């Protein structure tokens, strides 16, 4: 996509006293993308998010949202953002609906119909007129999402959104975020320290550690493969040694249980399959091996555990 990124961080730095909390962070998030922001606790995720929404100032660098600088054109920049920073804290003595009216009034053009629409979207219709103090954490999280999307933001920022959600809730949130990014083209920026969740949710992730950006990588198998050209493939066959002899000279094969694995591009894989079948070897399955995010993370951080 040649579109301008929805949010762009340029050399963002935060120093408190002599300590550098965030060090020259540069990254971009595009429209329609779910972007994961991954790092151990205390690595600067929340600090970065607070700078993105203007709650704390930057010591250096700048952040632009939909082309507006958070520093010099805050109201314009922030009007395109919906966010939950840390926990979804609401006015507990108000009902869910009154909370939404409250935040709705702060953006132009939010009608009663839009509030009802969002309430239905996050599935809170039955409880929306209850006081928030009676809500479970999962319901508060939904209400948090509701207030964040009321004004149809171009950028949705969620800080540890799966905290306190049960597996069904996490799945629902994931599906919902996908829908939002695909259908409305919203850029979604999610922070987490949970690798497996990020893996299911995100298109790309940035990994930060001690305030420094370590790596940005794509998580979609097709795009990753297309970029690299090569994929790790596992062939499940009945006679592995014979199969490897048949494929002699076509890349280095490694024996694994129930078959062998090779590194090859897509066309070669199809050719290999044809040869194997012609040679009378039974091919039970061909699988692309996708490295888990955890593997990748350990690779880039040199084995330091997170979480």
């Amino acid at each position: 996509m040649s579109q301008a990124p929805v949010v762009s961080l340029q050399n963002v730095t935060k120093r408190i006293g002599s300590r550098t909390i965030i060090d020259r962070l540069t990254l971009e998030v595009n429209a329609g993308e779910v972007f994961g922001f991954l790092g151990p606790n205390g690595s600067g995720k929340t600090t970065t998010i607070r700078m993105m929404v203007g709650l704390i100032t930057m010591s250096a660098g700048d952040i632009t949202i939909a082309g507006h600088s958070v520093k010099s054109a805050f109201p314009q920049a922030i009007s395109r953002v919906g966010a939950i920073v840390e926990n979804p804290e609401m006015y507990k003595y108000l009902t869910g609906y009154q909370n939404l009216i409250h935040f709705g009034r702060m953006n132009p053009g939010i009608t009663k119909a839009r509030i009802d629409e969002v309430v239905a979207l996050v599935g809170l219709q039955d409880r929306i007129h209850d006081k928030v103090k009676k809500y479970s954490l999962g319901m508060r999280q939904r209400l948090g999402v509701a207030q964040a999307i009321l004004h149809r933001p171009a950028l949705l920022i969620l800080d540890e959104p799966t905290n306190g959600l049960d597996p069904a809730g996490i799945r629902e949130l994931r599906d919902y975020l996908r829908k939002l990014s695909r259908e409305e083209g919203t850029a979604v920026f999610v922070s987490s320290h949970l690798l497996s969740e990020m893996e299911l949710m995100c298109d790309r992730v940035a990994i930060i550690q001690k305030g420094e950006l370590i790596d940005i990588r794509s998580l979609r198998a097709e795009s990753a493969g297309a970029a690299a050209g090569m994929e790790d493939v596992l062939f499940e066959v009945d006679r592995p040694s014979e199969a490897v002899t048949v494929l002699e000279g076509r890349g280095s094969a490694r024996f694994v249980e129930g078959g062998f694995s090779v590194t090859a591009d897509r066309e070669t894989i199809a050719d290999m399959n044809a040869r194997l079948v012609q040679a009378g070897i039974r091919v039970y399955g061909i699988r692309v091996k996708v490295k888990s995010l955890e593997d990748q993370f350990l690779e880039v951080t040199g084995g330091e555990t997170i979480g």
Partner: protein
Amino acid sequence: MRRLASFWKLVQNENMKIYRRVSTWIMLGITVAIPLLVTIIFGLVAEDNNANNWGAMMTESEILFLLVMIFSVVKSAESVAGEFSRGTIKLLLIRPWSRASILLSKFIAILLFALLFTAVSFAVTWLANVLAFGYTAHPDSLIPSQSPLAGSSPWLFMLRYYLDEFIVLAVVVSFGFMLSAAFRSSGLAIGLSLFLLFAGSMITGLLMLADQAWIKFVLFPHLGLTTYLNGSVPLSDYPTTYAFSLGVLAVYFIVFNAVSWTAFIKRDVSA
């Protein structure tokens, strides 16, 4: 105009957060109940002496202003510091509004709260005492003979009293606001402002010992703005005029608000 209309929505939000709380209605209940109780007690004991509606109203209003002051300080501390302790400040500040607008909307809502309680106090004390004692057009004991308003109607005297007390209220509220914006903790803001209010006369007394003319510029004596109505002055050793007191209060009002503004706008929110 559109800008003003949407700014009014911020004030509406603050009003919603004040009046959807049970505590606000308890405060209002107390403000109504106390003058009624005092009137009943007056009515019982005053059968042979000559209590009139204006005298009883004045006594009750003095008590009520103390209460309304406490309530307003509590609400102003809650309004700013409460957002920080709840964490809702993060949702409040990530909207297309400057922090100055948010703080101004809160200040206006608190002034409206103080105004409402002042109006309720006036209405209840007037009504209750007229019902209990009948209406006296020319009470002889309400206005002291040395008062600048001597000889005028009790209405004028009473309205001036309420106006003076409301001015003091506005200064005290901005003081509570300042502490709450600076400390971001409602407990500390409430405690400290009430301590200073009640210890004010004591502190003034201590400073009097120093026998210095600068005591005229200390805030506390001027919080007794209604002293002038009785033809007296807040500091007997250093006589000041009503206009001078108003000036001192105005300067403190501006300073308190400037500090709240700076504390609220400049500081990082990492709560």
